[in-house]
């Protein structure tokens, strides 16, 4: 199935958000995740299953004024 991650289309297996973030080595890092326009709290990463066509935005803090 296909999901959009930060604007890039990726082909992935059906899996939880947690395992997807794990595959990107992002677990344990300070990130925030939006799935189809809604924030997903960290506590729900393991229970949310990714579906074909999902749109993910993953953000972190960077320098800015």
């Amino acid at each position: 199935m296909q999901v959009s991650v930060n604007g890039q289309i990726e082909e992935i297996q059906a899996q939880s958000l947690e395992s997807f973030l794990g595959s990107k080595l992002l677990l344990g890092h300070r990130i925030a995740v939006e799935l189809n326009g809604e924030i997903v709290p960290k506590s729900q990463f393991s229970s949310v299953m990714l579906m074909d066509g999902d749109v993910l935005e993953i953000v972190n803090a960077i320098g800015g004024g």
Partner: protein
Amino acid sequence: MTDKIQIGSHELKSRLLVGTGKYRDLDETSRAIEASGADMVTMAVRRTNLGQNPNEPNLLDVISPDRYTLLPNTAGCRTADDAVRTCRLARELLDGHNLVKLEVISESRTLYPDVVETLRAARTLVEDNFEVMVYTSDDPLIATELESIGCVAVMPLGAPIGSGLGLQNPYNIREILDNLKVPVIVDAGVGTASDATVAMELGCEGVLMNTAIAEANDPVTMARAMRLAIESGRLAYEAGRMPRKRYADSSSPETGLIE
């Protein structure tokens, strides 16, 4: 030392608020912020680079949320909806921290605030329990409206972001100060220490800056200069300056001169 300031639920010791953009690296960022003495530090929220080394140091490793009051911004947002979305992501990123710097810009040449979208976003964010520090134009009527919406600080520009031109309209800043009860913080436009002092002498509660420090030849030394400039300007404001006079007024007695 000058007194503390209260912004929403946050008490700050320093009246200098600093950004973390444009530094050469995180080490320079960290040393400049330290030298500035600031407690409130801005940051931006951006898409995570998925290809990067996950062990690469992160801004929050050097600017710890335990030590600094972080102020996530909505820089780059051009609509109220984008700004609100960014604030919600920032709140999640910082474990429920609800203080944000709202800025909605309209075009790249001036980065001038889009006050129509800013007002819309401010209403939504205040309703959603954010504490909103808002970047705006130096229009006194808009500043008053932002206060009445419930923003915890109103932050008019001194000059365009990153321009270093200094305060272009001190009369408007003065008018805003006269009208508002919430802290007024000059955000953007400061180029060097004397610009920051001018803002503080007018009675601003603080100054927020980034480029003036980050793009100095020696950012760490400029950070210290700004710290002193802010403190100096505040003390001068509290002391109350002498009136301006048109003609000289001798400092030494004019009597008792030898003949």
